């Protein structure tokens, strides 16, 4: 039986890598005495697969994972047992069978909430203007480091919407819908880097991935 889980990664664990998260879940399964299926062969590994990785430093309400079990178990029991054995900051939000669902590797879109600080009190109109200005540029190039090399990339086609959702003092809350996964991936720090060209003093305070899903021909499908 393959089970799909939607997992929360909270403040306490926002710096752990995806591999760390996987290990933490694997160990929680053992503590919860849930019979995970292992791969055959010389170095057996638990059969767990993940949706595209989240960069460290970001909390998330939308991590997805498929786990294969040795036997058929009631879903609510898996949820309850696992949640009572997961370490602080990690919990299972939702659970369902993976059957008939989209493969996790096909998700390509994510929604984030980013809290920024501009150092001094924000005029909401100015912030709005800066965002609109940035989005109207034909190309938004930012330096991106991958494998130790810095490369300029155009992130404009990977941004699907940015909205200011709240302003208080020097802080603002921004909602971003961005490409994620193998087809193209951009994360909030890069978008903020681009925004710094318009508001140089802007810095990130908090980032959260709220949603992760697949968009095909304008149609949205959620993993669960």
């Amino acid at each position, binding site marked *: 039986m393959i089970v799909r889980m939607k997992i929360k990664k909270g403040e*306490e*664990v926002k*710096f*752990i*890598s995806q*591999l*760390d*998260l996987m*290990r*933490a879940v*694997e*160990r*929680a*399964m*053992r*503590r919860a*005495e849930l019979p995970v299926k*292992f791969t055959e062969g*010389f*170095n*057996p590994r*638990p059969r767990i697969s993940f949706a595209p990785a989240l960069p*460290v*430093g970001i909390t998330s309400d939308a991590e997805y994972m498929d786990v294969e079990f040795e036997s058929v178990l009631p879903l609510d029991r898996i949820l309850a047992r696992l949640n009572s*054995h997961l*370490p*602080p*900051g990690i919990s299972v939000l939702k659970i369902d069978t993976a059957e008939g669902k989209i493969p996790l590797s096909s998700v390509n879109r994510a929604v984030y909430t980013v809290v920024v600080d501009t150092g001094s009190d924000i005029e909401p109109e100015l912030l709005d203007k800066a965002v609109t200005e940035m989005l109207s540029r034909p190309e938004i190039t930012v330096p991106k480091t991958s494998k130790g090399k810095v490369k300029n990339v155009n992130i404009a086609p990977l941004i699907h919407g940015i909205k200011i959702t709240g302003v208080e003092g020097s802080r603002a809350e921004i909602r971003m819908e961005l490409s994620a996964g193998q087809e193209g991936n951009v994360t909030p720090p890069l978008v903020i880097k681009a925004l710094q060209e318009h508001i140089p003093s802007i810095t990130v*305070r908090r980032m959260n991935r709220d949603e992760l899903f697949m968009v095909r021909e304008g149609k949205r499908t959620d993993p669960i």
Partner: protein
Amino acid sequence: MEIKQILDEVLPQVSKPTRYTGNELNSVQKDKSKVKVRIALAFPDVYEVGMSHLGLRILYHLLNEREDVYAERVFAPWVDFEEIMRERGIPLFSLESKSPLSEFDFVGFSLQYEMSYSNVTNMLDLAGIPLFSKDRTDRDPIVIAGGPCAYNPEPLAEIIDLFVIGEAEEVILELVNLYLDHKKSSKGRIEFLERAARIPGVYVPAFYRVNYNEDGTVKEILPVKPGIPERVQKRIIRDLDRVYYPTKLIVPYMDIVHDRAVLEIFRGCTRGCRFCQAGMIYRPVREKSVDKLTNIAREMIKSTGYEEISLASLSTSDYSALKQLVEILTDEFRQCMVGLSLPSLRIDSFTLDLARKIQEIKKSGLTFAPEAGTQRLRDVINKGVTEEDLLNSVKGAFEAGWNTVKLYFMIGLPSETYEDLEGIARLAYRVVDAYREVRGNTKGLKVTVSTSTFVPKPFTPFQWEAQIPLDEIKERQRFLKKKLKGPNISYNWHDGKLSFLEAVFSRGDRKLNSVLKKARERGCRFDGWSDMFSFDKWMEAFREAGVNPEFYANRSRPEDEVFPWEVIDPGVEKSFLITELKKAREAKPTPDCRFNRCHGCGIMKLKGGIICDSKNED
């Protein structure tokens, strides 16, 4: 700004931020205002090294069992984070409550290897705690230290307020109780240290004066106050079945060096290798029972979910019920896919069978430690293994399908000649031959020869011997490099400069405290990490402090010399060590007292040793 907030801002910029975040499963959260004693357990290396250390984990959970105590952890920040800490004025802080170290009642360092001393001094500096004991006030924490390096406390005698000698499970609680009692009075740290110095196993260097001879050697070490013991005898736990052992271990998120449930099966060793300090200072041999161990293992897996259990001891093969234990554990945990690993297993026909059963070693390859290349030299160091034993075991392993073999040797052992070095190469080639004999060719075979340089250690029969000079170390490594060339053989060696410094500090005296200060000022830290180690800075520090390092490393000592570490009594007697030294010089082995008579090493006086008891029944 609170440390927690600053961390949020700066951690995204550092490598491996999880080193500094805490919050792991089974880490302990307490209200720091509701406890009476706060202890920072400090490990002078990065998180992934420190968290792999069993002693730290035992003490952490042991102390936190008490409601009135809060023990937290602190590790050496890696250099990238240190830079940010210094820039932003972040003091060294604990992982659990993110409190500055200066808030604690005690800061306790674990001293596992000499080359971490520069991290001790650097951590004190980052914590804003005065480096020298004499400069600390009642507002500063009491700085304590323990671990194998504490058996020669003198190089840190002016830095550490109080050393715990030997196994700490009981004495640490006695110290806490004393502290609680002392807090009721209005007296200060000196008075506390004076009372602490009366607890068996506690050494407070400030209460001892060292007088030197004209040639720079120690003349005498004298207590300066009445009631302070002349020598401090190490503490041991008599009954390992009754001592506290944690089962709700912290489970780290990040990959650490040894990330598994550790099951300590016994303490001590009777083999009596003459270079080995652990073999002398951890005597006598005491075991945990199979029943106890099975229960601990069960509990541990239940509360950690670890996928591997590892048996810990100085020499796993010596556990008297090893076969039974391995069978029970593999049966019990097969179902939930928990593996078993047996490090420090001596490979022979019996253990090979076990190894095959648990299949564990197959992944990592087989490891043998003949230590020396000829039978003569192995007799000198009392390493009771013959070339035939070794080749037979290797053959057995090849027959069973292994094809990776690691061979560990030491160079620069007392009396070593180039013939002995030749012997290392010869042995490696005989292993290749053995493979060819078994398999018909050498396809897939990998033999790795590793050499470290012999470092004479306090309380071993070789404590009187010299380390070979640095250029000689290099010369012998060059010799082996030339000899060990071949398609199936690779050779690697430890940096001789590091071994030289290790030799200085392992038999150093109080004059080295000022060298440590100068080295810290020059930025020495993480010396064990080759990209951080700067030999030149160390040499400048020695020059500036007016201390000659060769005096400590490269001088052989007369039998009647008084050693700086003799203020410590490890139980094993000096007379026994001298007898062993003389036998070494005649290349005469001393058989393991487990299978032979008692050799009267002196540890009997501490009681509780299972071998000692059985050998001395009448």
